[in-house]
């Protein structure tokens, strides 16, 4: 029978590094059941029968955040054989606060004391033996970064697990202990004996997620005990326990010889003084962002992506496959499927990869060195007005290059609601593939007017801001506001191995999950635009896609472009947005067009009025992004939220385009007041209502409490 060791600790304490050091390549990454919190486990190096279970990084075991609930549910119900609690020695008190909670779970606990080198560099010291004595559990000094003593700490946990000696919980003040003891007697018999303390404390805290089948009398008795302590201390029970825990943590830290840090400027403080300086903060931020963008989107990343697209999937693989297919004398349709469908589809996915690897490398570096938290610190004020997080800036900036890495960059936002909102709105920003569409419309119908391009970005930013405000008031997003209580970790130079590993994990995740979806979707579109309903290979304007375009065209008539070719072009934009230009070219009878479609400008002028063309442009900017981006959304949010995101984007695009066309046509005199105008007015009124209505009150009492305070 194998053994399970749970790895628990604060965020930023080196837990991931320790986990990697302990398990090497034998990791299994999944999700915790029902939630999108990542779950990692792996075998202990050299000890195949010991499984290390990585728990989310948490500060506490409160019932309020997803990560904390996942952690405590696992520890209470699954009961690993021991807990290996990793502690950041340079931040002893706050880390010990979690330890005091872990020790109540009736499980053996071993402490891995990390980052002692930082403490020594700051001129401090910690007696790990004294700490071990005060806590009554083994303490092992480790260096996760250098891999020192890591396996030894795990083996210590294995020994503790074999001994089955549960950690002895820390004791609080006399009055609290008295109440806990009384509650404990009420609880006993309703839970495992080893969980008695845990449940007593949770009931004392009036923990909303703790339910025991107690009778009304027992409940009243417990309530009376809580009340007595509350009245004596003039505070609520939850705060009383939290206070008591921190008192313990401070005492333990004192016993270990670690006093509160004196106000001495460390190197990290000096960096921070400059980087988040009142005047220099933003220029430095702009510089860093420019560098990230420059490396991943403008230069290194794009050079490699272009190489993959143009050389690898342009000159090397297709001719090779073509030659191979020719030698095998395969039928024409199979050639088409393999070359235009599969090879082109896989190419379109892999083409993004180099760009993303460079981007992920930059992001991993920013995250690991501690600058990411400062970005949120700088930008929070702007973004939280729109229901977004300070960290939403990065996905949006990256999104101007390509939506796929932009969406993937949202990973760095911890709060789930902020992350969802960011993913849904990021693709509103015109990405580089939308530029040809803008160039086409600007050139063909507005005489290359200078304002068309900037206006596209303006529409994108406006869509993000309005969506943020509207969505945060909907039922999907309303609820308790996420507090922005964020640790600003000390700056440190990240390890190359850690950064590379970080980058690699994300890249693999993208290839695996997004790859399959994009691949299938691209193949489907290829099929639709190559065959007719009798499954004969035909030109695009006789294909199934053309038929679908014909059916869909009337839907777009109120938007001013009921021509079936425009509808087909918009659909083909799902493969890649620049396809809109190419498809229009093909449908207007040109085999090949330049990137801005200069050949079809004349025809465009006959099919579109300027207002209709602008409506077409806005629709293509705002509607569902390309399949690659949708695949990335699915990877980040899961199936249900992908539907919500795409549905919202298409709906918004339709509404905005309709209003633009109807009002525009009315103002330019191209159309008179009619049903369309009325519909547009109604949409506008509803839109303004959604935008300016007051924030609905969430059902829970929590927000009221915050306001009252």
């Amino acid at each position: 029978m194998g053994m399970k060791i749970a790895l628990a600790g604060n965020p930023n304490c080196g837990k991931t590094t320790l986990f990697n050091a302990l398990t090497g390549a034998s990791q299994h990454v999944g999700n915790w059941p029902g939630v999108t919190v990542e779950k990692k486990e792996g075998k202990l190096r050299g000890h195949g029968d010991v499984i290390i279970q990585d728990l989310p990084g948490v500060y506490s075991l409160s019932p309020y955040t997803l990560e904390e609930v996942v952690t405590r549910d696992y520890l209470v119900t699954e009961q690993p054989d021991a807990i290996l609690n990793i502690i950041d020695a340079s931040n002893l008190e706050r880390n010990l606060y979690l330890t005091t909670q872990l020790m109540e779970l009736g499980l053996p606990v071993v402490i891995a004391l990390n980052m002692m080198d930082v403490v020594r560099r700051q001129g401090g010291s910690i007696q790990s033996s004294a700490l071990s004595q005060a806590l009554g559990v083994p303490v092992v000094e480790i260096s996760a970064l250098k891999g020192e003593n890591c396996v030894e700490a795990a083996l210590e946990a294995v020994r503790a697990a074999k001994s089955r000696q549960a950690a002895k919980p820390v004791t609080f003040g006399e009055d609290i202990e008295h109440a806990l003891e009384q509650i404990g007697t009420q609880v006993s018999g309703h839970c495992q004996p080893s969980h008695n303390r845990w449940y007593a404390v949770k009931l004392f805290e009036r923990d909303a997620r703790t339910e025991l089948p107690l009778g009304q009398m027992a409940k009243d008795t417990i309530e009376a005990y809580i009340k007595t302590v509350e009245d004596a201390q003039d505070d609520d029970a939850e705060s009383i326990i939290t206070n008591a825990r921190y008192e313990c943590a401070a005492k333990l830290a004192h016993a270990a010889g670690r006093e509160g840090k004196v106000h001495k400027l460390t190197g990290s403080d000096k960096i921070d003084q400059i980087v988040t300086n009142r005047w220099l903060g933003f220029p430095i931020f702009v510089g860093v962002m420019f560098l990230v963008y420059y490396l991943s989107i403008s230069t290194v990343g794009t050079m490699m992506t272009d190489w993959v697209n143009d050389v690898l999937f342009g000159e090397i693989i297709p001719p090779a496959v073509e030659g191979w297919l020719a030698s095998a004398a395969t039928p024409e349709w199979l050639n088409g499927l393999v070359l235009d469908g599969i090879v082109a589809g896989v190419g379109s996915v892999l083409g993004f990869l180099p760009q993303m690897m460079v981007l992920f490398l930059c992001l991993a570096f920013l995250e690991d060195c501690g600058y990411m938290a400062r970005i949120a610190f700088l930008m929070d004020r702007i973004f939280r007005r729109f229901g977004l997080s300070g960290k939403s800036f990065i996905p949006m900036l990256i999104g101007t290059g390509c939506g796929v890495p932009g969406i993937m960059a949202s990973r760095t936002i911890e709060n789930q609601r902020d992350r969802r909102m960011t993913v849904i709105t990021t693709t509103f920003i015109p990405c580089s593939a939308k530029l040809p569409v803008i160039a086409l419309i600007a050139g063909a119908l507005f005489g290359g007017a200078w304002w068309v391009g900037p206006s596209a970005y303006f529409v994108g930013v406006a869509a993000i801001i309005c969506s943020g405000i509207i969505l945060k008031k909907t039922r999907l997003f309303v609820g308790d506001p996420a507090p922005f209580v964020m640790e600003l970790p000390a700056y440190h130079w990240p390890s190359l191995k850690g950064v590379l590993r970080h980058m690699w994990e994300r890249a693999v995740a993208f290839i695996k999950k997004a790859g399959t979806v994009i691949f299938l979707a691209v193949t489907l579109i290829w099929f639709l635009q190559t065959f007719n309903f009798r499954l004969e290979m035909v030109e695009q304007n006789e294909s199934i896609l053309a038929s679908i375009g014909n059916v869909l065209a009337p839907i777009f008539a109120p938007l001013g472009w009921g021509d079936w070719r425009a509808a087909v072009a918009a659909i083909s934009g799902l493969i890649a947005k620049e396809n809109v230009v190419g498809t229009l070219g093909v449908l207007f009878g040109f085999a090949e067009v330049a990137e801005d479609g200069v050949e079809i400008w004349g025809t465009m002028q006959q099919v579109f009025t300027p207002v209709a063309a602008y409506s077409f442009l806005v629709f293509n900017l705002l509607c569902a992004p390309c399949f690659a981006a949708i695949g990335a959304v699915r990877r980040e949010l899961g199936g249900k939220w992908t539907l919500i995101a795409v549905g919202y984007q298409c709906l918004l695009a339709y509404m905005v385009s309709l209003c633009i066309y109807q009002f525009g046509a009315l103002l330019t005199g191209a159309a008179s007041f009619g049903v369309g105008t009325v519909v547009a007015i109604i949409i506008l009124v509803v839109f303004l209502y959604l935008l300016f209505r007051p924030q609905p009150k969430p059902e829970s009492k929590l927000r009221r409490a915050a306001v009252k305070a």
Partner: protein
Amino acid sequence: MKSLEQVKPGETVSVVRLHGEGPIKRRIMDMGITKGVTVFVRKVAPLGDPMEITVRGYELSLRKADCAAIEVQ
């Protein structure tokens, strides 16, 4: 009553009481801001919000709206 929101950068105060209840209060307390603890206000973000404080030997960022519920002296 003086709240943490009103404290100027560079000043050190001690926490008297936390008002309110529920997740935000718990979260603030979980991060170590409890009764009697010493808090040093390091700076305010360039746009005037949030604040950066030092508590229990580490750096924490808090929105001013949340700081308003922290009574200090």
